[in-house]
């Protein structure tokens, strides 16, 4: 039986420790690590080594080598460094390697040594060179902080969304700070730096001097500082061999320790076991390691979620393993398998040696209609690799046509984008594409494209109607749509023009368009309108009063009401007003004037084309029974009953109805027998009915 405690050694009075090797590194390093720039990614991620950085004793002609290993030392990539001198290396949260050059340019590489992009930290950095640089992690990404030769700090809190911030000056800073670090509090990145016995905190706006609570006296300089991964804790190592540990806010001290070693440590880091509440700082010198700890931590963190784990596997192209994990954990497809397949597809489109057809087919076979897979995302990746044709093929598999549109636009396939947008039924999307097309194509081509897409055309017309009237006209012109062009000019004659000449000119254009459209009716009607307008203007000049924009009917009525009968008749002849209308018109106007004499004369001028019932009606409307009665005798037999009822002569109406032997008329009269004196009439009708039935 083994003795489990055999390899545990006492540490002080109440603690024990043991030391054992977890695994051995597979790498085969030719040079010592001390000669390399080293960066290890968090969560057991990859390790990057840049050998042979620009040390003075080596010849400048020897190019350094950048090597990337897995956490266990498996080589992942190796490449000759061809760019400028590198000051610092670091991994982003997405496992991208950031290499900060002396000139402030940051080069970004993938896990497999593939170059991704580069960006610059700005002019000030370029001019003063990079003295020191740190890559740090915040909740919204990874940042870069730079200390320049002018002892100024520049930082970007998220390299994914690069916004450079130049930090304020530290007053009286003549040389580089003895140590510094980035902090992240309340979602804002700060810099803490030590100058002699003083500590300064830099934020965007100001530089403030800070003092850790309960700091032992006699400190003349800080040699090292370390911040915990969560930015909650801070450790300071002073030239007196004293370690202060507390919160980053510098409001609380957790513990202090005097190790009596005054030599500056090589490294100082916070560490703790996962799920442990114990927090500790490890301090390393050349041949000594010290663990200082106490702080009970109440909040636990589980930083590396299953999603991140899967991302890491995907990044290492271990797709089958990732899928197995998803299946084992029964993750919902959208979060699990689909996502990994989509990543696989994005990798697949980068295989340049496989033809577009084969790649597209392979992807579709594997992905099918898996929910949560966005073919447009994969296509976007293909386009990013310069494979436009493949991208279009992949987009064909995208079931939501709306999703295809943005990429198609990016690839300058605007016409295809337009059809897809129309298919999606989303008019806003159609409109977006239209504006793209409008800028991209010349006017003629743009209009041609619209012409083939009626849905888009209607949408654009609607917009033009309110916002770009001239374009609307051009659209109709292009289409030879003379009918609409005519309507357009008619509208213009109302809206735009005040003067009669202008209005008539607009109407003339409209009439011409209607002729071209072979719409003779509209053309003639428009010409009539022009004539009427001119005439109305003349009437206003000669007679005064308002005539403009009255209908023809109302113009004639106004003339009659004004006593201009001759003019009225002239107008009626000129515009060929049909007899029936003219009779209605005159009858109504004369009754309105209560010019009964003229009315009677008019009724006798010739045989009325509308009969004489209207005369009875209109007089009754003016409550003139006397005049109304004059016309009842002239009403034709078919309408006689009605006329007599109108003037209230129920008895005579009954006689006529009986004479006509018309059942409908009889009941009509009967329904009017409501007065006290109508009793006899009602009886008469009933008798007539009975008689009719006998026969």
């Amino acid at each position, binding site marked *: 039986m083994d003795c489990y405690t055999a390899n545990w050694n006492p540490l002080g009075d109440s603690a024990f420790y043991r030391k054992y090797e977890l695994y051995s590194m597979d790498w085969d390093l030719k040079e010592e690590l001390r000669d390399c720039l080293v960066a290890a990614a968090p969560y057991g991620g990859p390790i990057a080594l840049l050998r042979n950085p620009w040390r003075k004793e080596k010849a400048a002609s020897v190019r350094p080598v950048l090597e990337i290993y897995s956490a266990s030392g498996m080589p992942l990539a190796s490449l000759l460094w061809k760019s400028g001198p590198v000051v610092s290396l670091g991994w982003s949260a997405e496992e991208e390697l950031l290499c900060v050059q002396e000139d402030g340019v940051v080069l970004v590489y993938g896990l497999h040594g593939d170059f991704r992009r580069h960006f610059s930290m700005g002019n000030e950095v370029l001019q003063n060179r990079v003295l020191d640089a740190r890559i740090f992690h915040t909740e919204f990404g990874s940042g870069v902080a730079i200390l320049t030769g002018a002892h100024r700090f520049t930082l970007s809190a998220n390299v994914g969304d690069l916004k450079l911030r130049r930090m304020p000056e530290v007053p009286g800073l003549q040389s580089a700070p003895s140590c510094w670090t980035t902090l992240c509090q309340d979602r804002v990145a700060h810099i803490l730096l030590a100058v002699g016995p003083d500590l300064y905190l830099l934020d965007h706006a100001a530089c403030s001097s800070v003092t850790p609570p309960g700091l032992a006296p006699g400190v003349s300089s800080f040699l090292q500082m370390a911040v915990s991964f969560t930015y909650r804790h801070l450790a300071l190592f002073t030239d007196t061999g004293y370690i202060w540990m507390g919160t980053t806010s510098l409001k609380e001290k957790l513990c202090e320790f005097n190790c009596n070693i005054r030599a500056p440590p090589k490294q100082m880091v916070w560490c703790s076991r996962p799920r442990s509440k114990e927090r500790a700082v490890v301090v390393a010198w050349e041949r000594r390691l010290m663990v200082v700890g106490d702080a009970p931590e109440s909040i636990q963190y589980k930083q590396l979620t299953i999603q991140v784990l899967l991302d890491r596997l995907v990044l290492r192209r271990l797709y089958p393993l990732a899928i197995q994990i998803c299946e084992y954990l029964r993750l919902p497809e959208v979060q699990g398998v689909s996502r990994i397949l989509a990543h696989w597809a994005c990798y697949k489109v980068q295989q340049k040696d496989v033809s577009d057809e084969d790649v597209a087919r392979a992807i579709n076979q594997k992905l099918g209609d898996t*929910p949560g897979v966005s073919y447009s995302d994969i296509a976007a990746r293909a386009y990013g690799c310069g494979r436009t044709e493949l991208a279009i093929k992949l987009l064909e598999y995208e079931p*939501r046509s709306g999703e295809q549109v943005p990429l198609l636009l990016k690839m300058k396939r605007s016409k295809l984008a337009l059809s897809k947008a*129309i298919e999606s*039924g*989303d*008019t*806003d999307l159609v*409109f*977006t594409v239209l*504006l793209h097309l409008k800028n991209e194509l010349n006017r003629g081509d743009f209009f041609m494209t619209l012409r*083939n*897409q*009626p*849905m888009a055309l*209607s*949408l654009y*017309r*609607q*917009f033009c109607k*309110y*916002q770009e009237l001239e374009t609307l006209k051009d659209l109709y012109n292009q289409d030879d749509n003379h*009918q609409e062009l005519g*309507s357009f000019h*008619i*509208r213009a004659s*109302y*809206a735009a023009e005040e003067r009669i000449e202008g209005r008539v000119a607009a109407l003339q254009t409209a009439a011409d368009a209607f002729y071209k459209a072979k719409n003779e*009716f*509209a053309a003639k*009607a*428009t010409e*009539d*309108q022009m004539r*009427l307008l001119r005439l109305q203007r003349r009437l206003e000049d000669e007679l005064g009063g308002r005539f403009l*924009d*009255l*209908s*023809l*009917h109302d113009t004639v009525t106004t003339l009659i009401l004004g006593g201009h009968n001759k003019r009225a008749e002239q107008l009626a002849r000129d*515009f060929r*007003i*049909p007899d*029936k*209308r003219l009779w*209605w*018109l005159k009858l*109504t106007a004369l009754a309105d004037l209560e010019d009964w004499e003229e009315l009677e004369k008019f009724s006798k001028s010739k045989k009325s084309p*509308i009969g004489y019932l209207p005369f009875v009606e209109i007089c009754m409307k003016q409550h003139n029974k006397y005049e109304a009665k004059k016309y009842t005798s002239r009403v034709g037999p078919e309408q006689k009953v009605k006329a007599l009822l109108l003037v209230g002569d129920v008895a005579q109406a009954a006689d006529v109805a009986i004479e006509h032997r018309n059942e409908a008329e009889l009941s009509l009269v009967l329904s009017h027998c409501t007065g006290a004196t109508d009793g006899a009439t009602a009886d008469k009708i009933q008798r007539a009915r009975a008689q009719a039935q006998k026969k």
Partner: protein
Amino acid sequence: MAFPHRPDAPELPDFSMLKRLARDQLIYLLEQLPGKKDLFIEADLMSPLDRIANVSILKQHEVDKLYKVESKPAVSSSEQLCFLVRPRIKNMRYIANLVNADKLAGRTRKYKVIFSPQKFYACEMVLEEEGIYGDVSCDEWAFSLLPLDVDLLSMELPEFFRDYFLEGDQRWINTVAQALHLLSTLYGPFPNCYGIGRCAKMSYELWRKLEDEEDGETKGRRPEIGHIFLLDRDMDFVTALCSQVVYEGLVDDTFRIKCGSVDFGPEVTSSDKSLKVLLNAEDKVFNEIRNEHFSNVFGFLSQKARNLQAQYDRRRGMDIKQMKNFVSQELKGLKQEHRLLSLHIGACESIMKKKTKQDFQELIKTEHALLEGFNIRESTSYIEEHIDRQVSPIESLRLMCLLSITENGLIPKDYRSLKTQYLQSYGPEHLLTFSNLRRAGLLTEQAPGDTLTAVESKVSKLVTDKAAGKITDAFSSLAKRSNFRAISKKLNLIPRVDGEYDLKVPRDMAYVFSGAYVPLSCRIIEQVLERRSWQGLDEVVRLLNCSELAFTDMTREDKASSESLRLILVVFLGGCTFSEISALRFLGREKGYRFIFLTTAVTNSARLMEAMSEVKA
């Protein structure tokens, strides 16, 4: 009177939830602009808003003054301005003018635009063009369904009709799809879907897409509403063009019901004041007469008045205790009923007066002749006289359209002469109105000869939905032939009646048009529901020149209770009339269904005609 529902008729879902949702969202949006603010409201939104949140609720959320968005700019001294508008370009201009004037005066304020029911990209673009996009914040108030009554949901989008059916603008279809999506999230999925018309199909497809994208949310839910029926207004213009004679429709035709309420003028209230009256199921008197043929209403009301009097008269023999009881318990109810009764009696009198003046009987006779297709010459002269006498521009136009649709277009001679007469009577600007009516298929010229018909029927067979978009205007107006006569025969829309049609005891839906005509839209719904498919209606569908759709989800249907399978949501795209609502309510009572109506707006013949009319700018 007021036929009760069958005892097994399903209960209606509670739609008041929609109001609460809309209110909460509006409050949330108002709170996004903390502090005192002035609210500018578009006129069209005022009544709907009033049904959701009254002034005191607005004040509670720090709305200080209210302004109407109109042509002249309002002078507000507030530091924060909030605009509640429909997504229209002219509103954007109004806002831009206001903001730019502030800029000129060197004044800085906060501006927020709330679009209802959604914003459109074109609007944002105008804001950008006017240079104020950065100065305003935009939000959406997704308020698309207003419950006007227990069974009536309105989107309050009257412009849907003109935008889609005249201008071919499809932007509101997305709004419809969103509204349907909201309903299915709240009230469970619909196991059976039917539809007819292009717009119905597009709305359906867009809605399905939305459901698929959020798969799983409604999957497990029990359906509350068994069927949904989507219907394009343009497949039945005839019904919407007829004069309404059912009480609610007649009130709408005469006084215009706006957003569920009506303004009764002094001639109705018999006082010197107008009165705004909410017309819905809560008005007990109205609820009993709303679906009745007008000829019954007066008699019913006077009977009711006599009963009421008898109730009052009971007081006479009462001792003090009984009297106390009567006053505290019954009097208030009686007084309320009394008030409503006298209002509706007043409304009836006013309607009668107006109708006798314009010779309503003659008008109805002409309409019936047009529907049945006899005495066309006589009807045409009647219309001509109507125009010559300048009776009413909207009425004349309506009759012309009714003639055109029932006759498959006017014969060329009449087409020209009626239009000429119309222009002479009502003004030359209506040339544009005629162009609109032709485009919408409401007033067309008969195609000469039958040769064209053969081509057309070929074309209509070729016209699949995707291709339909590609045919030009001219061609599609050819395809818009109504074929009303043939459809009417196929569907038996003109009931054969021996003797008088008893309007007191209706036997079919034709009672809403005095027994002369069964509304086409309602008949189609009846037929499809009976068959649970379009089977056997192929010929009708072909004549309608529409494409139909039917979809049944068996897994969902299995989950649905027998009650929910008798609940039917009818969606009218482009508006529905009160006559149609009454007809379907009648059908529901006969067959044990309950209908729920969703319409883009309540419409009638005058509104349809006005939507097509061009007025001088």
